[in-house]
């Protein structure tokens, strides 16, 4: 018998299926891949942490009976009118342009129903979102699209965007397909062109200038509004310290898992820190300056459930911010649209061509027919439900740890499942008293 045993066909761990498809795509098109969403690969995250709960030496609070408060004040350092959110979860800045007007309205409705804030984005403030958001944070970005003093004054807080977790050091882009008349007009640009947003602010560079820029914004708004500074997680210790020195009321720290509307895949996956590794250095900077809790810290990037919220707070954040999860709550990537996702060459749960504007769920689009599919009232209700669940879940954990306020969660309540997470979060490896690096 002339039979040679064959080895099983073996896919390469290095040249895996995705890498091969990307090589073929690049070879065919000559341009990098652009997509929405955040980092998709596995990086150390909140899942690598566990709460200890109560024990003989720590007693819990009665679930459903004993109070566990959830509110947060933001902007107490300098602002005459700090804002008070009822839950420690805010809606992150997502631009009108990247999102439909209906989606922006739904975000406002959902956030307002549970007493929290929402945020504008790279493209200015729309009437819909101002009208439907009880608390609205107005972003000042390098592009300054739509920026004007009237909106600045009718905002409840101002967020200077230095960077975003998905692309620290990168600007933005909105491809021609998504430039409707209204979007073009708000941005003072022609229709149908690919709009780029600069990566650096046009009128300041460096921390000393930032301090003066903040002073100007305070003067224009008569020192009433809290001023946030948003940074992508890259050098969180120094960025936090410098933002505090520049006079920020609130620091927003966005990890690499954080979503984006449209960025190069290579940027999303290879630049910036996972949020897990960024919180402790930022908190350390605040503590070193005697500013922890005086300058509030909001963290974001891959927050999905109440456990993530609780863990972020236990590591020292005052609140978290959500982007992707909020869109999913509105209806993004819903299996109900599977047939349409298939036509777009993808499947529910994986759809990330948000820049193309063909979103079957009507969220990341400017196509009037698609956008009309999203009912802002219903979608807003779903978001409110989801935010309530996040809060209830975080409270469940906090009570089990004996805390009467979510902000009382602390690193001592946590252990890590992996050495990496232990080192990043600076909590002991589970079952040991070992914190790597200490």
């Amino acid at each position: 018998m002339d039979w040679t045993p064959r080895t099983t066909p073996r896919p390469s761990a290095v040249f895996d299926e995705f890498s091969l498809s990307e090589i073929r795509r690049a070879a065919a098109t000559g341009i990098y891949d652009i997509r929405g969403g955040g980092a998709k690969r596995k990086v150390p995250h909140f899942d690598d942490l566990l709460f200890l709960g109560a024990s003989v030496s720590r007693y819990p609070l009665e679930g459903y009976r004993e109070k566990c408060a959830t509110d947060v004040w933001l902007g107490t350092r300098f602002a005459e009118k700090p804002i008070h959110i009822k839950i420690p979860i805010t809606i992150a800045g997502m631009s009108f342009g990247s999102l439909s007007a209906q989606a922006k309205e739904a975000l406002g409705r959902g956030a307002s129903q549970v007493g929290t804030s929402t945020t504008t984005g790279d493209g200015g403030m729309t009437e819909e979102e101002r009208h439907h958001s009880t608390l609205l944070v107005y972003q000042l970005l390098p592009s300054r699209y739509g920026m004007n003093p009237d909106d600045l004054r009718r905002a409840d807080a101002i967020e200077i965007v230095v960077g975003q977790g998905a692309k620290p050091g990168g600007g933005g882009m909105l491809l021609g397909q998504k430039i409707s008349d209204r979007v073009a007009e708000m941005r003072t640009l022609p229709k149908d062109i690919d709009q780029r947003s600069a990566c650096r602010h046009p009128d300041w560079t460096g921390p000393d200038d930032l301090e003066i820029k903040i002073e100007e914004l305070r003067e224009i708004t008569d020192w009433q509004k809290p001023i946030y500074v948003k940074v992508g997680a890259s050098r969180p210790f120094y960025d936090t310290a410098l933002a505090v020195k520049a006079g920020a009321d609130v620091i927003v720290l966005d990890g690499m898992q954080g979503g984006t509307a449209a960025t190069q895949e290579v940027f999303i996956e290879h630049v910036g820190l996972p949020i897990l590794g960024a919180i402790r250095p930022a908190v350390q900077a605040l503590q070193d300056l005697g500013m922890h809790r005086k300058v509030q810290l909001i963290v974001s990037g891959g927050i999905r459930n109440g456990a993530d919220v609780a863990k972020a707070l236990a590591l020292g954040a005052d609140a978290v911010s959500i982007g992707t999860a909020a869109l999913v709550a509105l209806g993004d990537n819903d299996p109900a649209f599977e047939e349409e996702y298939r036509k777009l060459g993808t499947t529910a749960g994986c759809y990330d061509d948000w820049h193309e504007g063909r979103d079957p769920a009507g969220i990341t689009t400017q196509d009037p027919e698609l956008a009309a599919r999203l009912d802002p009232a219903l979608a807003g209700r779903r978001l409110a439900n989801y935010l309530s669940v996040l809060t209830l879940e975080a409270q469940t954990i906090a009570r089990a740890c004996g805390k009467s306020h979510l902000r009382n969660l602390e690193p001592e309540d946590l252990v890590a499942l992996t050495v990496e997470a232990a080192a990043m979060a600076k909590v002991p490896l589970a079952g040991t008293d070992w914190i790597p690096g200490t």
Partner: protein
Amino acid sequence: MPEIDLGTTPLRELNAALHRLSPDTNESHWIVDHPEGRHAIAAGLAVPITVEINGPVGYYCAGMNKLATVLIHGSAGVGVAENMMSGFVHVTGDASQSAGATGRGGLLRIDGNASSRCGISMKGIDIVVKGSVGHMSAFMAQAGNLVVFGDAGEALGDSIYEARLFVRGKVKGLGADCIEKEMRDEHKQALHNVLERAGFDGQIDPDEFKRYGSARKLYNFKVDNAGAY
């Protein structure tokens, strides 16, 4: 005519007083003395008044100005009239970087030179500079007119959109996607109008200027332009 001495009155008091004014105020002409380079002087004005500042100002003077006229008898720091919406800002001296940055309307006149990034990301403002402008001026300029009597530095109009640039002197270099364009009658008329509004009616000949604007080649991502992104 209210006269405020910033040597003795805190800036906050001045700006708060200016912000409290109603559009029909009869306190429509203010004098500010001893600015001494303070930042954000007369920032965020929203009514049609005139503020005259006697001396040099720091960063962001007249920032986000609406309707007001701000006369700076001296030089201006970074970002004078940044994001101006309307009105008129006049600097008799030189201006530092990013003069008129992201401005959406109104007119900024600078009698001296303006440093780098003059008119960066401008969105409808008109800027007239009697002297020269530094490098990267009109970077990503979207709309409005930048008029330069003197020379322009390197990379003028890099990644420009629909703004119009008029330069009388030499241009050291044009940025990506910025080209010299034909000066047609409509452009001469537009330039004439800007000059007239800036107070140079009949003194300057539009024919002496060259016009620069977007080649519109980078408006949509194309493989062949990859090197320019």
